[in-house]
């Protein structure tokens, strides 16, 4: 079997367009899932009885519903347009996992740290934001990196609602040229590049947190 890589050059604008949409979806979903997941995780770790029960229900429900089902509910049942529905599905899906990571990270900080901060005269809010959260954040970086990489991979689900992201464009190349190996290899490289960029960015954040703590 001979390979024909020039088809990738012919379809470069389609593949680039798909990559840009994947990148946009991933960045927006990472930001949204981080905000929502961190809020839910904080409530789960530190909130009152009702807050902990409600957030536990939120996490269990969203983790156990496949992202495809969330997407179909948003787009075909609730009638939300394809792009917002895709972003909402990605954010809701991954926020549950981010909430779990956040709660675990907060619980990993010894309770004595918060007690000591309070004893030194810091308010509850300042002891949480200045003492507990930075320590928890260092522990959260590796699992959060994994979650963000998941968002990149899950972003391909939006092609089910006719959004033309990277996997969609890869399939277009294959359908029109039957050069599946070349198309799949190109998509692999692009997805891997995106995932490695996220890993590198998170590694930088981890080093910055470590320097700050030192």
């Amino acid at each position, binding site marked *: 079997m001979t390979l024909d890589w020039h088809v990738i050059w012919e379809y470069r604008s389609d593949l680039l367009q798909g990559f840009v949409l994947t990148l946009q979806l991933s960045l927006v979903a990472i930001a949204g899932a981080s905000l929502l997941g961190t809020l839910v995780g904080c409530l789960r770790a530190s909130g009152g009885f009702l807050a902990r029960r409600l957030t536990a229900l939120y996490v269990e429900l969203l983790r156990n519903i496949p992202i495809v089902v969330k997407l179909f509910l948003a787009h075909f049942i609730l009638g939300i347009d394809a792009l917002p529905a895709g972003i909402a599905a990605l954010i809701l899906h991954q926020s549950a996992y981010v909430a779990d990571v956040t709660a675990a990270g907060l619980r990993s900080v010894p309770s004595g740290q918060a007690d000591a901060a309070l004893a030194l005269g810091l308010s509850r809010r300042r002891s949480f934001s200045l003492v507990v959260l930075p320590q928890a954040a260092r522990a959260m970086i590796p699992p959060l990196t994994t979650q963000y990489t998941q968002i990149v991979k899950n972003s391909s689900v939006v092609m089910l609602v006719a959004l033309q992201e990277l996997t969609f464009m890869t399939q277009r190349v294959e359908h029109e040229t039957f050069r599946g190996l070349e198309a799949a290899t190109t998509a692999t490289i692009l997805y891997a590049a995106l995932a490695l960029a996220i890993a590198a960015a998170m*590694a930088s954040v981890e080093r910055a947190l470590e320097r700050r703590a030192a």
Partner: protein
Amino acid sequence: MTSLLCRRVLCLVIALGVGAAASFAASPGLARSTLDVIRERGKLLAGVRFDAPPNGYVSPQGEIVGFGPDLARELARHLGVELELVQVTSKNRIPLLQSGQIDADIGTTTPTKTRDEVVDFSYVYVVDPTLILVRKGDSTDPADYFDSERRVGALQGSFYVGLWRQHSPAARILEYQELPELVVALAQGKVDVVPTMRSQAFGILEALGERAEGLAVGEAFFEDVMAIGLRENDSDWRDWVNWALQRLWAEGIYQALYKKHYRMDPPFALGDAGRLQPGVDKIAQERDPW
């Protein structure tokens, strides 16, 4: 964290290297005809649709029925081998054929130049008008939708994407992965029109039953032809399939099966310029089982 990153990069490089090496490894070409392979194997691997009535679908009793499966049964019978029906879709039919996992794609494939560069085709064996599905009350004239303002729905990889662009280069086409989502998108107003083949349009309305009240079948604007997909450069197998189609036509079996499933006589004449090849009904050689 840095060592984790390095490990990930190393894994990626190894994976790409293995993939590249595999791609350059010599793969065996088509040494023998598929006809000989089938006879030696004792089984015909026929790719058919499970989701495209009346060409190929699963009956309520769980049987694989339709014009394609029935034709495959006739071919297997005359080859004197068993039959295995393999599900094909728009996405996998060509790769399955190229990889040898099916011997023939007896589905709903339209011969196009691009496809003909990688596989071969038999005589046209189905002619199905292409018409439009619209919402009830909307125009049923396809020409009213050939403008860039209308949203067109189609399945990704289907023939209709390119066909519609020929009529309307600036059309906004939303490509879905599966037919149910496409039909729901039309019903919900996410697309304005769906080009599809006549048999599929009526099949969709029949499957929807009362829920089809909001949909309507428009006029035809193209005649879609379909042919049996075969592996590239396998002339012995292609010749046999073409002779088989002509012999079934000469015996009247072809027309009976067509009418049974498409509910109409074939709107075309099989063969070269609509004529069967002279002597096609004669069994010539041992390698031509019938």
